[in-house]
């Protein structure tokens, strides 16, 4: 599901958590970075070396939970905003979660906020314990919120104000053909897919031929916006491979200029 929705699966998250014992013994960072991407600032910032050095910059970060203190620097620096600071050790009923939060207005200490899960669904209310602005770390504030202990690894976002629920609209029974002939394919010259299809049916199947006949790609964009769409259409209709279709010539100037400028052109400056 993670790949489809962006919501990390339960197992991914539980595998990232330290042991029960470690969780009970003090604050810790949880790194919810489950895709190998070229990125390593967390390994460099950690003052305790708890985020182990990577052999390759694409490696997933690995934690040494024996040395992690939950200081929160990694949460402030992570470009993916994927690190959270959890403290389950100071009470039997409540725990705290530190969330990187780049929105305005920022909550204030003492505010009661709505806490959402990884899918943006409301879970519980929480009380803001502190807000660290992290000016030194490109201004990614980390907001620490107290929540019921059993929810601390469920909640990952906060919302300040009550907002109207947005219902997903219902299905439209109006069944349109997916891409009718009237759809515009070349904005500059207002050429429709239908006109292009008609020409292709007559045997005109490269970009320059179409350009000369119906002006597709002849306007101010010079094909930047429409070229690949027109080539796709040619490919679809003729069965030619995209790379086998002629793109047509590219000529100066790359943008409209005034004749006056050309005439006044200088050899030397």
């Amino acid at each position: 599901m993670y790949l489809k929705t962006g919501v990390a699966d339960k197992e991914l998250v539980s595998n990232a958590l330290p042991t029960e014992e470690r969780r009970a013994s003090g604050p810790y960072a949880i790194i919810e970075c489950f895709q190998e991407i070229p990125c390593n600032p967390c390994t460099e910032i950690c003052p305790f070396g708890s985020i182990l050095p990577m052999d390759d910059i694409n490696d997933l970060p690995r934690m040494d939970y024996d040395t992690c203190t939950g200081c929160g620097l990694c949460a402030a620096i992570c470009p993916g905003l994927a690190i959270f600071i959890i403290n389950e050790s100071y009470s039997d009923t409540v725990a705290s979660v530190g969330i990187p939060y780049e929105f305005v207005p920022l909550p204030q200490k003492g505010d009661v906020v709505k806490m959402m899960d990884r899918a943006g669904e409301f879970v519980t209310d929480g009380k803001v314990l502190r807000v660290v602005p992290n000016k030194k770390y490109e201004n990614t504030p980390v907001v620490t919120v107290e929540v019921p202990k059993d929810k601390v690894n469920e909640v990952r976002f906060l919302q300040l104000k009550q907002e109207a629920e947005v219902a997903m609209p219902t299905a439209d029974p109006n069944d349109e053909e997916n891409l009718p002939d009237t759809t515009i394919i070349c904005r500059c010259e207002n050429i429709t897919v239908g006109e292009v299809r008609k020409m292709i049916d007559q045997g005109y199947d490269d970009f320059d031929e179409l350009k000369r006949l119906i002006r597709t790609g002849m306007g101010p964009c010079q094909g930047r916006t429409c070229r690949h769409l027109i080539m796709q259409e040619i490919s679809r209709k003729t069965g030619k491979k995209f790379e086998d279709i002629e793109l047509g010539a590219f000529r100066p100037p790359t943008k409209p200029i005034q004749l006056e400028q050309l005439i006044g052109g200088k050899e030397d400056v």
Partner: protein
Amino acid sequence: MLRIEEHPILTFEKGKLVTFTFDGKELQGYEGDTIASALHAAGVKVMGHHHVSGRPRGFYCAIGNCGSCLMIVNGEPNIRVCVVPLEEGMVVETQNNRGDLL
């Protein structure tokens, strides 16, 4: 109101107020605006109509690539307003044809 007043990362220092006209109507933007951003902030999304079909056109790329935002500025047609800075007293008009020779 489409102007961003408060932002978590950026601060927008508004420049001097700039007055210009759009199809004869007086509008205001700020120094630092492009013509397109000032129009958009003033609620103007339609920048012209296609010369054949008459269909409305707005900007598309906002960085001078696509040529979808051509307007008449101070009498000169075919100006890509997404990349031209707004200036005091500019006369901006929608363009509904290919542009006449000056």
